């Protein structure tokens, strides 16, 4: 193992002129790549889709989806610490109002309605995109604030590649990754293994001003994903995927607690199969998935031991028909069974959901406009029928000025915890519903060596029957008690400059303003009316500068997060913070293979900050990475 490392290191000192041969599916940093939007967004007219840069997905510091999104987007990721639980909040909505879709299937846990982003490895996916806004009509429950789309398209051409990666960093952070990509004309296979761990014993300043090391914060996790696609006929293919992840995480004490012995253990297996039939005017997609997730939490000091076992089975059949010269119809049916086994339920509980959804897309190619009208009929077992409409418009005023518009009705069904937790759960809870509206405009110009894009979106949505746990007497009850109004402005820009095949410079900047306020009192003397939701920053901004020269690259990310309130009366707040990271990388090709080494400096200015009150976060840290891309079989796609 050590000898191999030395051989790899020798390559570092052997400079080669950068080869023009590009290796498919690896980091392409000197060409402007038109990244196509994921196919799920074909009918989401009017919603802003932000595709995450492929290079950013491969940055060692962005190993988990939580880190990737908090670094690369202005969406707010509530993280309990390095490697700890991380959940996303988009447009002021909570984590259960943002959907994480894996090849179109929603990954939320039946018990909580959320997904822990720290357990999703960025390297397991080829395409990651964020969709801002409500999309329940197409994707079902929980899509009020936005969605994260994870996907991987098959690669049906001759190729055989191995990717080996080893990262090591401050505070005992280590990661090893091995990926095997293989394909032929009628077969595509990806298998990626990842093992990582970190001691997380970073120094931080406790409330008394002493510098102490964070105790009991080590994490260890292992996972793999295998994705196999087969061409099954002239115009059909079958995709099967298995995704496994386990994580064992020590839960550190907060900075005002002396000690913790709590440990959180997670393990999930997610499987899915997808059969596509693609004809000239007709497309059929049958997708099925089964997710099995176990989580145990043990705190010997508090004598707490809990076990959460979630299972989800989902089936989705979607048809896309070209009904006319510029018209398409999407019609689908989806069914979902959710089962959770938790001590607090006293018996296994389940939920059965089904929906019919459809969208009618009309294209106006002469003026460059697209419009879609959608509707979803929700026929869940435990709720009355409901119909949700949506209308969206995507177009341009002249070549360079895109416009977007979308109005939709969205919903979130109560989670199994909200319905069945004993005591306090309420099986009679109604789904939360919302009306969402947004409009966006921008400017885009693509030249031979310069690409400019600016955009601004205004949005407003009102959620009714928002479920909160409220104290009544000595107990807490889940009630459809709150109304939340969230509105704001999102501004983003991108400037990419590539004068020749040696230099490139890309700048992207964004700013989000989000006012999400409680519009109902939960009791007579509730001082929270009209106040900002907790842990929802009003201001959030980011700047990214990426410069490349031949095979060298420097990327700087600067993220500013404004203050957040920690109490519903907004009388306590955590200060805002500015985080800056730098990535320096160099790639060395040799024949058809490539070596990439990089160094990341995270939190360059050693900012003393917390995301969640009294949960310490690391100061400046380093991460070094060595990646080897070995091409065994090579053909251009």
């Amino acid at each position, binding site marked *: 193992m050590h000898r191999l490392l030395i051989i790899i290191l020798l390559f570092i000192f052997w400079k080669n002129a950068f080869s023009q041969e590009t290796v498919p599916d690896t980091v392409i940093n000197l060409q402007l790549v038109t990244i196509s939007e994921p196919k799920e967004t074909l009918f989401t007219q009017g919603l802003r889709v932000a595709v995450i840069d492929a290079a950013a997905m491969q940055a060692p510091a962005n190993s988990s989806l939580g880190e990737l999104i908090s670094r690369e987007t202005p969406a707010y990721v509530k993280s309990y610490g390095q490697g700890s639980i991380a959940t996303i909040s988009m447009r002021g909505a909570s984590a259960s109002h943002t959907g994480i879709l894996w090849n179109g299937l929603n990954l939320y846990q039946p018990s909580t309605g959320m997904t822990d982003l720290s357990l999703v490895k960025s390297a397991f996916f080829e395409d990651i995109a964020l969709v801002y806004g409500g999309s329940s009509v197409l994707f079902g429950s929980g899509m009020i604030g936005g969605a994260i789309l994870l996907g991987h398209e098959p690669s049906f051409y001759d190729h055989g590649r191995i990717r080996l990666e080893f990262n090591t960093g401050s505070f005992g952070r280590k990661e090893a990754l091995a990926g095997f990509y293989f394909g032929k004309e009628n077969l595509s296979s990806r298998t990626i293994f990842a093992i990582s761990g970190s001691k997380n014993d970073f120094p931080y300043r406790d409330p008394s001003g002493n510098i102490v090391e964070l105790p009991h914060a080590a994490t260890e996790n292992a996972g793999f994903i295998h994705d196999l696609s087969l061409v099954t006929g002239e115009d059909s293919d079958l995709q099967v995927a298995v995704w496994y992840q386990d994580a064992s995480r020590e839960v550190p004490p*907060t900075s*005002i*607690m002396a000690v913790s012995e709590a440990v959180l253990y997670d393990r999930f297996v997610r499987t899915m199969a997808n059969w596509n039939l693609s004809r000239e005017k007709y497309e059929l997609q049958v997708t099925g998935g089964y997710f099995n997730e176990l989580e145990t939490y043990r705190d010997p000091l508090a004598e707490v031991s809990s076990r959460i076992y979630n299972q989800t089975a989902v089936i989705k059949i979607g048809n896309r028909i070209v009904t006319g010269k510029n018209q398409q119809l999407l019609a689908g049916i989806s069914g979902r069974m959710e089962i959770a086994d938790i001590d607090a339920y006293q018996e296994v509980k389940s939920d059965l959901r089904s929906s019919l959804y459809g969208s009618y897309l009309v294209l106006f190619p002469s003026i460059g406009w697209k419009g879609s009208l959608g509707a979803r009929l929700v026929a869940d077992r435990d709720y009355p029928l409901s119909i949700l409409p949506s209308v969206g418009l995507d177009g341009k005023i002249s070549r360079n000025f895109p416009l977007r518009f979308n109005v939709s009705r969205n919903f979130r069904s109560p989670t199994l915890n909200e319905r069945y937790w004993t005591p*306090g759960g309420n099986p009679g809870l109604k789904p939360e519903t919302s009306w969402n509206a947004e409009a966006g405009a921008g400017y885009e110009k693509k030249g031979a060596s310069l690409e400019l894009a600016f955009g601004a979106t205004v949005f407003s949505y009102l959620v009714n029957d928002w479920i909160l746990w409220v104290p009544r*007497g000595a107990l807490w009850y889940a009630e459809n008690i709150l109304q939340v109004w969230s509105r704001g402005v999102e501004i983003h820009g991108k400037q990419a400059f590539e004068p020749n095949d040696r230099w490139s410079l890309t700048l992207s900047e964004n700013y989000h303003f989000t006012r999400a306020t409680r519009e109902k009192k939960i009791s007579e*003397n509730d001082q*929270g009316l009209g106040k900002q939701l907790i842990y929802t920053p009003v201001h959030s901004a980011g700047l990214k500068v990426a410069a490349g020269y031949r095979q060298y690259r420097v990327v700087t990310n600067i993220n500013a997060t404004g203050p957040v309130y920690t109490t519903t009366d907004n009388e306590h707040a955590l200060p805002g913070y500015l985080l800056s990271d730098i990535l320096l990388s160099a790639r060395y090709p040799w024949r058809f293979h490539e070596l990439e080494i990089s160094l990341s400096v995270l939190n360059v200015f050693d900012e003393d900050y917390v995301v969640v*009150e*009294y949960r310490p976060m690391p100061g400046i840290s380093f991460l070094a990475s060595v990646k080897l891309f070995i091409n065994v079989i090579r053909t251009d796609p």
Partner: protein
Amino acid sequence: MKKPLHFLFLLPIVISMMLFLSCERNTIEPENEYENKAVVVNEGPFPNGSGSLTVFDRNTHESGQEVFLSANGRPLGNVVQSATVHHDVLYVAVNNSNKLEIAHIDSFVSIASLDVSLPRYFLGISEEKGYVSSWNDEVYVVDLVKNRIGDTISCPTGPDRMVLAGGKVFVLNSGGFQNDNRVTVIDPQTDQVVTVVTVGDNPSGAVIDRDDKLWVLCAGKGWNGFPAADDTPGSLHRIDPLQNEIERSIIFTDSSVHPSRLAISGERNRLYVLFPDGVAVMGIDDAELPSPDLIRGNFYGMEVDPSNGMIYLTDPVDYVQNGWVYAYLPDGSLSDSLRAGIIPSSIAFP
């Protein structure tokens, strides 16, 4: 001519000195004025967040927030369970931070911070000694001169509130994270357990009445609003602290409604019991406890000011914002209210 000039020159200086001194008199409080003040204990949000102390004037109900943080520049810690004043010193049990904070009652400046596992309540026994109960199923002896933890006294589960009666310490065994139904009697001269008295399920409150009898309130087993088969009703027991025996018990009729707090009036002849929907009042010689009709509403904590009989009830609203403390007169009418911190739960009276 010089004298008047001198006078004119000095006058502004004298006047500003007078103003300065009078200002000082208003802002610097004499050390023993704290007797007019009481301290609200705010548990703080769980698990991320710090509890706090709110000081208020017992007559005017003016309040000052986060007094420990202001005095010491650091937060109290997670889940502040209780505060007790003993010989001019404030002892604060910070349950989830595993600390007993010791501070001056007048300035709140910290004297010492002791490591104690899961502390619940402090009881001052003499000028040199105190006890702190811990959900580690132990009572620790505290040396109040050196501010150190000394011996350990093992106990049945969840030692909680403690009272001194008949020269002995009565410790309620609340069960901690489980259920228990006992009161442990400890001799503070020897720090040994003398006996254990069995009462009802989940003893949650204890007061001494005018006849020097010990009253213990038991919550009973079960969740309010979620009746289950093995629920037991709440109860009140009058114990003779000299004989360590129960003299009288009142078992409540409804086993699905569980009281949580016990307090006694200023004259120590009327008992107040806090139920989920209000406060019930009973004379110590009455046969049974009436319905909770004295004060209606749902409250988290209940305390009575021993000097004037004012009944204080706390309201944490949604437990994620600053709460309220309501002041009621002994006849049940609302007198006043004051803002407290996050999850106000009890009050320490000097």
